[in-house]
């Protein structure tokens, strides 16, 4: 077991983990954040996408110990006081989901991408979601949702956690930085 300290959605968690624990299982099973899904065994589907220091990563292909001292944002970290994040709202409005299994990963990949490219065109959105598979929608509504969400984010100047990968860690954690340490 190793002691790690990870800031997840603005809250610092200290926990003992086995070195072989994957980040996604740490989030789901130790922290109870089950919004991050596991859809494959081959690092292909992107259902497990979270932001690590503001950059999208597949949480099934990182060890929890690799996140020690870092900043993770999951789908649960997007809404503020019960109000959906503009990207979540756009997926709802544009019918960007059917079964919903891929949706948290799609939203996290999109939000991560938009922190570096706030005004993408349709082709760029499709490229940006290359690492996320959806078995239901055929992608059209997902792409439309991301374009609408991007517009809404520009209009509301939304920022998401972790400093966009900035080395100085100067990012804002989505308006819900809570004080204190939570030890599960």
């Amino acid at each position, binding site marked *: 077991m*190793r002691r790690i300290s990870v800031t997840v959605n603005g809250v610092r968690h200290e926990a003992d983990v*086995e*070195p*072989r*624990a*994957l980040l996604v*299982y740490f989030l789901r099973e130790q922290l109870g954040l089950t919004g991050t899904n596991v859809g494959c*065994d*081959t*690092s*292909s589907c*992107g259902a497990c*996408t979270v932001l*690590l220091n503001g*950059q*999208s*990563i*597949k949480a*099934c*292909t*990182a*060890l929890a*110990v*690799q996140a*020690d001292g870092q900043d993770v944002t999951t789908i649960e970290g997007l809404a503020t006081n019960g109000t959906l994040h503009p990207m979540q709202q756009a997926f709802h409005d544009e019918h960007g989901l059917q079964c919903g299994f891929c949706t948290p990963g799609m939203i996290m*990949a999109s939000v*991560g*991408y938009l922190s570096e490219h706030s005004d993408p065109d349709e082709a760029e959105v499709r490229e*940006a979601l*290359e*690492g*996320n598979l959806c078995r239901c929608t055929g992608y059209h509504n997902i792409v439309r949702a991301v374009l609408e969400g991007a517009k809404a984010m520009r209009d509301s100047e939304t920022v998401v956690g972790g400093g966009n*990968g900035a080395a100085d860690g100067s990012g804002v954690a989505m308006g819900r930085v809570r004080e204190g340490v939570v030890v599960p």
Partner: protein
Amino acid sequence: MIPAAFEYERPSSLDEALALLADGGDDARPLAGGHSLLPLMRLRLARPTLLVDIGGLNDLRYVRDEGDQIAIGALCTHHALSHAPELSGGCGLIAEVAGQIGDPQVRHRGTIGGSVAHADPASDLPAALLALDAEVVAQGPGGSRSIAAADFFVGPLMSALEPSEILTEVRVAKREGCASGYQKFQRRAQDWAIVGVAAVVESDGGSISNAAIGLTNMSGTPLRATAVEEALAGAADEGAIAEAAKKVSEAGTPFADANASAEFRLHLAEVLIRRVIADAMS
């Protein structure tokens, strides 16, 4: 699946990492981005007993302009390379190739050192490094040595690195005024290359004066298409480029697998050479 149990260390200096690897013996492995190693461990195709996580060695994250060479730290991610302004001219090939690897999530984690050390014949960066005559710097318990890319790749998943060595840097001579490009054929988005072609082209008044071509996944190691390179010298139009591209068969008979027969691989290589050279020249 979850990997088999292992010991884990996260050293904070290169010396510490080298000592841990030396003590760990043959079943100790460095862990960089984990995007080749962790998938293998999840499938239990790899079961190292000790992982030495070099992810904290931030001194190995740099792209440096050193006058006539560019030095790239082993821990530079594909994402960082694809945005590095220092990679221009012929060296722009590295940025181009890095930007075509996997998907954004993979590029945020995977590193150049890991890609090169892993020596997967389907990896994209090795062919580019071969075409650029890059050097790979390895640090071991006894000091550091430099290995030419041409000598580095020994076979599928086999490199000239010793188990006790850490790849610290990739060095490439600057090629201002050269054009370059990379094209790969894949059946689905995000797939690995069935065949890939990296090219660096120097031209003089509309005709090619010098070309270097690296091939991905045509053999157990990346290859140089030397017969094509020679035939391209002096080529000035599509016809001459197409004739030269045919010589790719002289690089040897490619392997066959579930994705492609040897004939199809040769066909793909020929077509991709034509396209990548035409693109680089335009």
